[in-house]
């Protein structure tokens, strides 16, 4: 029993040491530009590349959980696909801290009233929408996304977009 207790304490200490990557200083992140549903529709319609649109909020646990996956997807496919984040019903400081913590270095917009989320459909956050060039919706994923789904839908975008 004592050995198990020691092991648990050791693991807890090790886990505490492994904090978030925090590779970016929050002061390096500029305030997120405000946007509206209309502006996002225009962005989607005029994009020459397929778009992965992620709707997130810093207070949303599942958004934190999927953030490393989106970072990885952007690093791998950022040249072929435009990654866009829309932060909804949030505060600027928290949003910037979230981006710094997860080093999400693709374009992000701020939508305090959550208009984009309402207009593009779906309930709650996170949501991930996949658009072909020109703005046609290819796939809409509600809730936290997994690697398989993200990779599959990116592949679909690249083959059909």
């Amino acid at each position: 029993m004592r050995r198990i207790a020691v092991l648990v304490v050791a693991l807890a200490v090790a886990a505490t040491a492994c904090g978030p990557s925090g590779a970016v200083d929050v002061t390096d992140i500029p305030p997120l530009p405000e946007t509206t549903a209309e502006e996002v529709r225009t962005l989607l319609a005029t994009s020459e590349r397929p778009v992965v649109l992620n709707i997130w909020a810093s207070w949303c646990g599942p958004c934190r959980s999927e953030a490393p996956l989106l970072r990885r997807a952007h690093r791998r496919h950022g040249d072929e696909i435009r990654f866009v984040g829309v932060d909804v019903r949030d505060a600027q400081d928290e949003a910037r801290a979230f981006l710094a913590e997860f080093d999400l270095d693709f374009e992000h917009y701020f939508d305090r009233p959550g208009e984009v989320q309402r207009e593009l459909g779906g309930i709650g956050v996170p949501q991930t929408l996949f658009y072909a060039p020109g703005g046609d919706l290819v796939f809409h994923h509600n809730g936290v996304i997994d690697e398989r789904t993200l990779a599959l839908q990116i592949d679909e975008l690249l083959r059909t977009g």
Partner: protein
Amino acid sequence: MEFSLLGAVLVAVVAVWAVLRFEAGRTNAADCSRDLWDALLLAGIVGLAVGRVVAMLRDGTNPITTPGDLLIVRSGVDTAGASAAALLTFGWTMRRALWWMADAAAAAALAGLAGWHAGCLVRESACLGTPTDLPWALTQAGSPVGRHPVELYAALLLALAAVGFVLWKRFARPPAGVLGSLAIAVAAGSRLATEPMRPSLGSGPVWLYAAGLVAGVGLAGWRWLRPAVVRT
């Protein structure tokens, strides 16, 4: 809200239960089913939890400061951590008769894994893999791209192995530990064979599957040549 993951877990649990029930009194001792059920369930739960913690640490998320993230299993479970934890848990709970109990659990464990993969049918796009022109290719709704039903391939391989193990035990019981070891090899081999057909954002832990296959075959060979004996 979608319940595909929960559905897959349910199919896996039912498959384990069904095989244990079928084997009780036929190819397994009638009184060991409950112990096996408890041990397999515990191994699955511990494996899932440890795999999730390892995935969080790998992604730079602290499980101490954000314990709620542990429950968001869909975000990722580290296969190496989960497999090691599940095997160690099973080994520890069954340490008094490890090789015999591993043999008794082998078919049920493979059936559970088969059920887990077949659970993709709850949400068909979860079965899809890399593109193919084969006649049995599946497509996502609204897409012209045919894809390998890769999870169904894995489910089929594992289910066939589970049936093969039951038949083997019924007609020619191999030395203790051989089936349990081969189950590890089959589980790893089925992933190794299907991994190239899975869409992913990086290479999967192919080294782990290869290591599992070699270790499983090696252990089986060792137990075949030097059968375990009951210590009194």
